[in-house]
């Protein structure tokens, strides 16, 4: 015999409700499980030329590729975080902020191509890593 755990939203019957969105929890469905989250700062030259990559990273050491997502405040304004990838392609320049993972490490990348001057900035990456195995 299979048993289930369910809690419903107020006004819904946990025993008879079938719409997942009306259940605050149902053991029929998996959920995302937090592992770690935090910030990583990466200082880069916004006007670099030729194209320059500067990276940061954080170890998760899970042994598999985990579910994750990353936001970036590209010049550490302290006010605006955007979902990565953040990609600019203005005329004669390229500026991108993105992230990828391996089985051990989450990497944060700044990719810059400018006129060849110096304009140092610091990007603040905000990361969330979950225990969920992507299954590769």
């Amino acid at each position, binding site marked *: 015999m299979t048993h289930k755990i369910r809690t419903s939203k107020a006004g819904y019957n946990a025993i008879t409700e079938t719409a997942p969105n009306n259940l605050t929890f149902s053991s029929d*469905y*998996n*959920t995302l499980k937090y592992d770690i989250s935090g910030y990583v700062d990466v200082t880069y030259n916004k006007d670099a030329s030729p194209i320059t990559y500067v990276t940061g990273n954080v170890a998760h050491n899970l042994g598999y590729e985990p579910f*994750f997502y990353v936001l970036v405040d590209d010049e550490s304004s302290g006010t605006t975080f955007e979902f990565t990838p953040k990609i600019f392609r203005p005329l004669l320049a390229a500026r991108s902020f*993105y992230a990828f*993972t*391996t089985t051990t490490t989450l990497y944060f990348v700044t990719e810059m191509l400018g006129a060849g001057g110096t304009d140092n900035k610091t990007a603040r990456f905000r990361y969330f890593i979950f225990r969920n195995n992507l299954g*590769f």
Partner: protein
Amino acid sequence: MSYKFAVSKATKNVLTATDPNDFIFHSNYNTFKILAHDTGTISVASGFNGTKTITHSYGTRQGFFVFFKYPSGRTTYFHNPIRIGSSDDTLTIDYFLNPPSNNANTISFDIANSGGSSLDIKYSYYLFEIAI
């Protein structure tokens, strides 16, 4: 009569805590339920530039997240690039014209393989409870 079911973090009193972050679970707050998850592989022929499709056949349009694992082993979501001098430079997911999108039964995305041989890209998708 309504009841609550709650589990608090260690050192937090489940009966008196009020901050949602102090709970491992609380029935007052919805959880982000995963309706479906699957993985697969798509082969991309040398010189291919066009749309590829993942068929999930769920039947309704749901919130989604899709990850891709490139031949180098680097893994990321949606249309994050995978550069840094990697051989994966020859495999790119378009981020302007048609980034990954989801409908009732498929996830589609544009991909280009500018390399000299066919390459495989692995995918892992999640469908979440929220309809879109």
